[in-house]
Structures are given as C-alpha cells and as structure tokens.
C-alpha cells in the first residue's frame, strides 16, 4: 500500500476474513488518524470483534486477506515490535494464574520494559489503585475488564494505538466516565501520535465519546466518518434492521471536560 500520511496511525486496506464458510469481513478499509477515538458499531455478529482482532494483528497471517499497517512498525515486525505501538483488550480478559491486579498490569509491559510509575498511573486511570493487590480472580467482571484496560494503558504509557473490544461492558457509570476521561487524555496528550479504536454495542454512548465512527453490517462498512454525521437514526436503522429514533438519554454519567459531548 502507498505510504501513510503522517496523520494516519493505523490503516487497513481491503481486509477480508473467513471462518470456514462464514464470511466475517468483506473488504473492509479504514484509516485511523492520530488524536481520534473511533467507535465501531453494528448489530451482533456484524464483524466488529473480527475487525478489531485483524487490526490488532492477533489473527494469524494467512487467516485473512488484505493489509494492516501500523505506523512506526515494519509490516513483518515481530509480536514484540508491534506491542510497543498497539495494545489490545479482548471482550473477556482471562488470567489463568493467581496474579494480582498490579502484576497483571505489569505484565502488559512485558515487551517494553518495567516502569512502576506507568503501572501506578494506569491503575489510577481505571480507579483500581486501592484494589491493586487483590488477586485477579477475586475481582468482579467489570473490575477485571478495568484491570485489562489498565494493562493496555501501562503497555502504551508513552502513547500508541489502543484497540479495545467492548471495554465498557459490565463497567459501572462512574467508572465509565473515569475511563473515558483517561482514554481521551491519553489519546490527545501523547506526543507520539496516539489513537483508540473501540467496539461499542451502545450507539448512544459511541456518539457521546467518539470522534469518528464506523458502522458495520454483515462484514462490510455501511458508513464511516465523523461520529456526529454517521451515528444518526437513518444509518443506524439500516445497520440494526430496526427503526432507531433520537431520544434523550434517560440517565448518563457526566463526562469530564476533556471528553467531547455531543448528545
């Protein structure tokens, strides 16, 4: 692919993916600009998670077609090289050993090098400083999710691309506001060209926190661009095959000043 403009930190060009006979992604292209938060929305099974895994390059080569380019990393770079520039949090993070939350966050820096200050900042950002020495297993589902987000924050303490799969599912509203605030701060303040891509099943939340959006349907991009112009009833109705209407949010956490509010 042609060289990326300095503004683009992550790009995919005509990415396709099959699971056996099922087509999960059908020639999806996208470009993520620095300083943005991109929300991927769409109905269950539309390929959100598949796209995020392909962008994270955790699906083995040959399993998909098309190219994914991460700024600053060689196309054929090692897993360790990629880990210095992008972090990934799956929908259900797991740890099959009795590590504490702090140890799990530390392990995120496996490829980068130890930095206790970064670990502390990351735990603070997800509001788990006080429970950091509790075993991962003893934490609730939402707390485990937050530990995994902290691990991704610690991994890219000096900036990079965060790919988060449904990071806010099971997280309570106050913590959603805190995490989103931290994510915005990290994406906009880091000098080295940072961005975040998250899948969200709630289009309202997506419109409140994201700058950009990609709406997917059946493995294809239905619409993409500025979140405010893409996350509208007409497009979403088509994506969900169900009539969507503008409605005031019944209850929502107040987001910090750094987060752009649109609703």
């Amino acid at each position, binding site marked *: 692919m042609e060289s990326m403009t300095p503004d683009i930190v992550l790009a995919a060009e005509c990415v396709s993916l099959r699971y056996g006979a099922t087509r999960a992604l059908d020639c999806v292209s996208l470009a993520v600009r620095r300083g943005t938060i991109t929300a991927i929305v769409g109905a269950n099974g539309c390929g959100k998670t598949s796209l995020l895994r392909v962008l994270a390059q955790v699906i*083995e080569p040959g399993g998909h077609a098309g190219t994914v380019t991460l700024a600053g990393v060689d196309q054929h770079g*090692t897993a360790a090289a990629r*880990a210095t520039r992008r972090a990934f949090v799956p929908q259900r*993070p797991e740890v*099959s*050993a009795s590590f504490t939350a702090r140890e799990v966050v530390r*392990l995120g820096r*496996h*490829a980068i090098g130890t930095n206790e200050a970064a670990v502390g900042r990351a735990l603070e950002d997800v509001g788990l400083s006080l429970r950091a020495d509790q075993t991962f297993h003893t934490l609730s589902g939402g707390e485990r999710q937050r530990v995994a987000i902290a691990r991704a924050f610690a991994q890219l303490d000096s900036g990079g691309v965060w790919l988060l799969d449904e990071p806010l599912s099971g997280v309570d509203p106050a913590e959603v506001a805190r995490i989103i605030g931290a994510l915005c701060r990290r994406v906009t303040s880091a000098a080295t060209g940072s961005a975040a891509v998250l899948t969200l099943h709630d289009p309202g939340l997506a419109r409140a926190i994201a700058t950009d959006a990609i709406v997917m349907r059946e493995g294809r991009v239905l619409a993409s661009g500025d979140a405010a112009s893409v996350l509208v009833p007409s497009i979403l109705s088509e994506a969900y095959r169900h009539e969507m209407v503008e409605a005031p949010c019944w209850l929502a956490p107040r987001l910090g000043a750094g987060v752009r509010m649109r609703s």
Partner: protein
Amino acid sequence: MSARGFALLLTALCTAAGCRLALGPVADGGELRLTLAIPASEVLELRTTAVCSAVSLGAALGLAGLALQVLLRNPLASPFVLGISSGAGFGVALVLAGAYAAGVSAVSFGGEIAGAMLGAFATLLLVGWLGRSRAGHDPTTLVLSGVIVGAIFSAGTMLVEQMVPHGLRGDLLSWMAGRLPELPGRTAFWTLLASVVAGWLVLASNARALDVACFTDDEALASGVDIVRLRRILFGVGGFLAAVAVAYAGPIGFVGLIGPHIARRLVGPRHTVLVAGSALAGAALLVTADTARQAIDLGTGRLPVGVVTALAGGPAFLWLLRSGRWNR
C-alpha cells in the same frame, strides 16, 4: 513470599534426603531390621545414588508438569496426559514380546529402557503431529489426541500381554507400577540429569513469557509474546522431560501434577521463581515417597515408588482441590 517458600521446599527436600540416607534395613542376628542410623560408607554410597536418582527424576517430573500445565492452560495437566506413559508401556511390551518370540527368557533392564524410550518419543511425535493446527499447538486438540493415543497404546499393551507367557507379564506389570532404579546405569542417570538441567534452563529463560502466557492467546500475542513459538517450546520441553522420566523409571504418577501446585502456593505464580520451585517440589515429593517406601515393609519386598506416589498423591490432590486455594 517466595524466599520463605523456597526455604520450606529446601528444608523438606533435605529432611527427606537425610531420612532416606539414614533409614534402611540392617542385619540383626540373621534378621533384617529397619534402623535410622548413619550407615557404613558403602551403604551410604548406594543410598546417595538412590537419592540423586530420585531428586533428578522428581525435578524432571515437576518441570514437565509445569511446562504442560502452562501449555495446556489446564491445572490437571501432568506429564502423562499426552499419552506418553502408555506409549512407553507399549514400547516395553513390544520389547518383551520380541524377546519372547526370539526365545529369550529374560530381558535386561537396558532392553526395557530402550523400549520405553522408543515408545515415549514415538508417542510424543505422534501426539505433537496430531495436535498441530495452522495456529500452532491447540491445547484442546493436544489433550484429546494425547488421551486417545494413550488409550490406543494401553489397549495395544493389553493385547501384547495376552500373547506373552506369565513370567514376562510380571516384568511388564512391575514396569507399569513405576519403580526408581536403585542402581541406575550411568548413561541413564546422566541423560536424565542433563535433560533436567536443559529443560530448567529453557523454561527459566522464558519465565516472563510464561507469565504472559496465562492471558488469552490474543492478549499474550498483543503483549508481545509469540505464543505459537512459546507453545512449541513448552511442548518440546514438557514432552521430552516426560519421555525421559518415563523411560527412566516407568510411569510415576502425581509428582508432576502436584509438584507445580505446591510450588505455586509456596513461592507464588511468577515463573521466575516457579520454575525452580516446581523442580524442587517435585524432587522433595519423590524423595519423600522413596523414603516412605523404605519404611513400609510388607514382607514381600519394597513397594514400587509409583504405588506410594499414587496412594499418597491422590488424596493430597483431592485435598488441594477441596481446599479451594489451588491456583488455576
């Protein structure tokens, strides 16, 4: 946590080794009596060999268990879940049957080791091949392949058993019980020790990657660990150590299963300490079992050590399970 844990493990190992050196039958007026005393130098030398043999074998089993538990992400993984002991048993059965067909009435210990080695490594390669997918070794496929290949070889062993005379059947049964060679051949012992050291070094040098391997594959990969390569290493080390251990002493159960669990509780989950901890725990367990075996006199000779580890290890494992504090 880990310093105290290591101290405990070392104390247990030294105590067990000390007892093993001092404990033994002494002729007393035409009758053998069990005594606890510093033995004559030639006896001490024999017992030192036995202790070294048990320490090395225990360490091999502990390390193999740890490698396979991380590989298969399963706390129930033991060196034998890959079907290696059954394969080795089949190898021994074939050697015995071959000897019978050739008209040899007794097979030397070396012949059995060769058969076990061949069976163990053939199984390892077969299971490794069956358990491979495009994304490397898949834990579920590996376990299923191991269990099924093991079942096939066990049936094969029974088939061969039906075809050989009673005397050879006894040899096979005694091998299957798992016994520590009292006077191991030099080559066998040094091979075992070299394997332990090599396996230890490989695991220790990958310790931090092993920690990250406790995440899901996607997370480990995204954190910078080449999980496919790491699985290949774990399969190689775990399988090789298990095969060498089975060839050396027959299938000795539970040491490889419980050793890593005890180590996790005593030294914690970090592999920088857990690798050494598992080797130490395995060694301490096997030397203890071997010592206990000396003290149990059924009047028909000593029990095979595999019987002791199974009798004591089974309940110990259940206790670990029930106490709910074992680490996943």
